[in-house]
């Protein structure tokens, strides 16, 4: 009996070991390579940009801009670091255009050039400083790269994250290379990044706080109101650039965005809520995959940095009834510090980096600069999650095991958040919809589920714990969070 028992233990160990070894993990598909700056230099990365000569430029919160050669081949061919500029004022974003490196500093958008060819910038041109700044540390300024029309978008944090004590605090502005500034959207609280989706529409991330129940990815439709009314006093300076000041939200109750939208026509709801605490606490940089498959199966999708939990999220966006919405999926964790900047090149290589200074991060290191490469293996993931009038269509990166596609493989909860002046919100108005399988495509790569009820304005958190691929593996990430601003007609 004892012998048999021992044998069983051994067998189960071996099986366990095999199962463990086989159980897919993120690093099978995407690897993270960490860089170290020369000497004891820190790299509290804010912005990351690709230079035309193939070097990668990073800006740090301490104001230094490095150019890094061999950033794609490190460590096989070691990275070569060079200081391009120093002591700028917390430059959090970088962009390259027509021979100039643009940095979005706290006080201005600056463009730099190395004229004498020593590798260091010697011309610093102020492109625009047409907004207010009062010395409060919270008045951050995040910028995008250039859009199709040649504009760089800046998202200006509120003063102290609650009030708007300087011109255009809580606004998003567009600046072109000639310095023309165009006020573009209002209602911002505390941004962490501005970027584009695959078709070039502009999005920014806003952090949970007052008038912002959860952190989210928001669509910057020109003329839109993003929810926090404190910056709206500056309409009298905007000279009609985005029309009249929106009506006030209700200051006295915990409202819902869904209700407030009815009263405030320009209120654009968060496109994709990144449920606070569940997936992260502080979203940052935004980059979309334009690599035509070189970064794996997620071409055209959008990636969002996460500072607190040291992660990168994946986002699928679609437009329904004229409004952007979509799903957030966990993508990759285990970064060394709090991710701020993001770059995803056309060659399918992602760079990220950040800092935990002032705002803690799970990664534990004070700063980091890292590269993400796709290993060439395709993870079993929900590829897209599309809203239907009575549920969702899920597509997959590889065929599902048809046997695993049954009602019990799915579970869902739906919830929303308070919309009001208090700091953040718990999840409220919880609904537990019933999920039933409607159909499965012949190729096994698409499943339609019926969800009853669908709740307009709610985050629909789907867990597909029972799904398996052909090899019996579950989804690499079973959770998906779809923000249902609109239900398709």
């Amino acid at each position, binding site marked *: 009996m004892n012998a048999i028992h021992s044998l069983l233990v051994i067998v189960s160990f071996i099986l366990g070991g095999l199962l463990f070894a086989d159980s897919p993990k993120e690093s099978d598909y995407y690897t993270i390579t960490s860089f170290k700056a020369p000497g004891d230099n820190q790299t509290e990365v804010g912005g990351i940009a690709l230079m035309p000569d193939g070097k990668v430029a990073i800006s740090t919160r301490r104001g230094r801009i490095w150019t890094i050669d061999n950033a794609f081949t490190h460590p096989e061919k070691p990275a070569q670091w060079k200081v391009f500029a*120093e002591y700028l004022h917390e430059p959090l974003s970088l962009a390259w255009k027509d021979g100039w490196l643009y940095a979005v500093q706290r006080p*201005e958008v600056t463009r730099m050039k190395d004229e004498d060819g020593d590798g260091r910038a*010697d011309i610093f041109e102020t492109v625009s*400083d047409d907004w207010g*700044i*009062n010395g409060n540390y919270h008045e951050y300024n995040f910028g995008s790269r250039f859009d199709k029309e040649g504009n760089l978008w800046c998202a200006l944090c509120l003063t102290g994250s609650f009030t708007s004590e300087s011109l255009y605090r809580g606004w998003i502005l567009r600046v072109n290379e000639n310095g023309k500034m165009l006020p573009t959207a209002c209602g911002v609280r505390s941004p962490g990044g501005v970027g584009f989706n695959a078709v070039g529409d502009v999005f920014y991330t806003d952090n949970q706080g007052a008038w912002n129940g959860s952190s989210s990815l928001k669509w910057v439709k020109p003329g839109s109101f993003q929810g926090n*009314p*404190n910056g709206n*006093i500056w309409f009298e300076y905007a000279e009609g650039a985005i029309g009249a000041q929106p009506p*006030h939200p209700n200051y006295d109750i915990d409202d819902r965005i869904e209700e407030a939208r009815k009263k405030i026509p320009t209120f654009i709801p968060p496109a994709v809520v990144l449920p606070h605490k569940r997936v992260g606490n502080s979203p940052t940089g935004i980059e979309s995959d334009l690599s035509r498959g070189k970064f794996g199966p997620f071409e055209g999708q959008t990636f969002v940095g996460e500072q607190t939990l040291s992660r990168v999220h994946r986002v699928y966006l679609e437009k329904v009834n004229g409004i952007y919405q979509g799903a957030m999926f966990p993508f990759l964790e285990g970064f060394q510090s709090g991710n701020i900047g993001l770059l995803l090149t056309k060659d399918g290589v992602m760079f990220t980096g950040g800092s935990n200074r002032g705002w803690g991060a799970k990664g534990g290191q004070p700063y980091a600069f890292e590269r993400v490469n796709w290993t060439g293996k395709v993870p079993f993931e929900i590829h897209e999650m599309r809203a239907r009038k009575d549920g969702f269509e899920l597509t997959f990166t590889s065929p599902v095991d048809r046997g695993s596609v049954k009602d019990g493989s799915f579970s869902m909860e739906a919830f929303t958040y308070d919309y009001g002046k208090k700091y953040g919100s718990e999840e409220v108005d919880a609904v537990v919809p019933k999920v039933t399988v409607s159909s499965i495509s012949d190729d096994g790569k698409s499943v339609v589920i019926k969800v009853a009820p669908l709740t307009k304005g709610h985050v629909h958190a789907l867990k597909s714990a029972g799904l398996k691929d052909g090899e019996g593996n579950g989804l690499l990430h079973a959770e998906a969070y779809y923000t249902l601003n609109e239900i398709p007609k």
Partner: protein
Amino acid sequence: MKTVIAIFFLFTSGVYAQSEKVMELGKQTFASCSLCHGADGKGAKAGDILMAPSLHDSEFVKSKIAKPLVAVILKGIVKEDSKYLQQMVPLEAALSDEQIAAVAAYIRKEFGGPETTIKPGDVKRWRSQYKSRSVSWKRSELAQVVARAETGPLLRNVSYSVYEGKWSKLPDFSTMEPVQRGELKDGKLTLDVVKDRKDNFGIVFEGDLKVAYTDTYEFSLLSDDGSALIIDGENVINHDGIHPATIRKGSEKLEAGEHTFKVLYFEGGGNEALGLSVEAKKIGEMSLSKKPVKKSQKKQKVYPPIILKPENDEAIVHRAFLPDAKPRAIGVGYPGGINLVWDADVLNLAYVWRGGFMDTAKHWNGRGSGSEPVGGPRTKIAHGLPLQQLESLDEPWVSFSEAKIKYERDVPNPVKEHTFNRKHPDYQFRGYRLDGNRFPTFRYNYKDIEVTDTFTPAISGREDALIRLIKFAGEAPDHCYFRISDMSPAVKKKDSDWISVGNLEIYIEGVEPTFRQSEGKKEVLALIDKDVEIKVTYRWTSPRKEAVK
């Protein structure tokens, strides 16, 4: 009798309703705390770690005195490890006395602390006690805050006797008859009790010294003139004789419990001062006098300095929030120890100084509140917008561009006026260009003219100097003046073209300066017409105190 009962009833129900209201306010206020500490006070999870510690185990929550908890709420806690994701930030600016009192009461009631009344007045007092403290608490200090709060006042039942006489050493007061006696209500030693006396008097303070912990206590006695500290009849500090305000220290091991103390003091002539403080491991430092012993307590720096120093004959151009300038400040440190701040909000030089350049410790730590020039002193030179059209020389100079707007947070129809910096529509900052030594030339536009502003450190005669070249390209509008200085006295030195201004002398080339007195200031102006170039040499009038290598 009926009336009395009715009044009593009203009174008690009033208190009850109020405390319920306080708890409600506390609960509301706690909502933002709960994001990290959790609604249940057990710490909110972020993945598999906690955002902030559980309040149930907190010594500040459990302390029989509310003050340490309030101290934490006011000032926050320095992040010394990464056990938790977040950092307790100072909330003194965000929360009112009422909110802090309510949230502290709520936290103590809900999460296992003793139920004590905390009045907004208490918070107000503690707020003012910690007013000069600019940094968060270290955990080790907080333990001392708890110990201090639980100890209570060290000096109790303090009485004083005032004597008259002219001495050069402490006399034997026991043989003399006091001219005045009294008691110190708060036990804090002070010369306020002899406000009408200036010279030739003595005071003996005596009473109980109660310590809660057995420990070695180091006392610091500051006096002008002589003084002594006696504990349990033993002389602990002898600081006798005629002398200016200096500190003498003495240590004594004290058992927990009651002791007696005496402070003897005399004042001959001139200034007078008296202060006493004590320091021990457990309680940290406590002042035992109304005026603290360290008259100007230096701002406590949590961060070791990070000094930027120009090297290799190159200047450093450092953009950060800097003191005495608007937020778009640019610090420039030149090799050789001449430094300046050029203010891109007002397109002008803000100030110059000699010596060390910049400490970035506060800028590069925490959330980044700005850098601090390290040398000095700083000389402000006409800080403000540089150009103005003056129809008459009686028109005042407008230094800063500001505007007002009605604004209150989360209020639909605000009534309060808020003043903000507004970019002046006539100016546009264009940035700067660095030369081979990385010396910047600042560029800006004013109306139709392009202006460049360049500085070069130099030696003039035997003194430090800074040469400034300002070029105005294009045709300036009518009556357009550039302000070179707003410092007194602004007079030409005898037999020379140098003009004395403050601790500098300036020498102007390229234009004929216009002198005027405006709004109590002496101003040196220059009329700008077409394609003007002005060279101004700023020269210090005294040698530098510290050499910069």
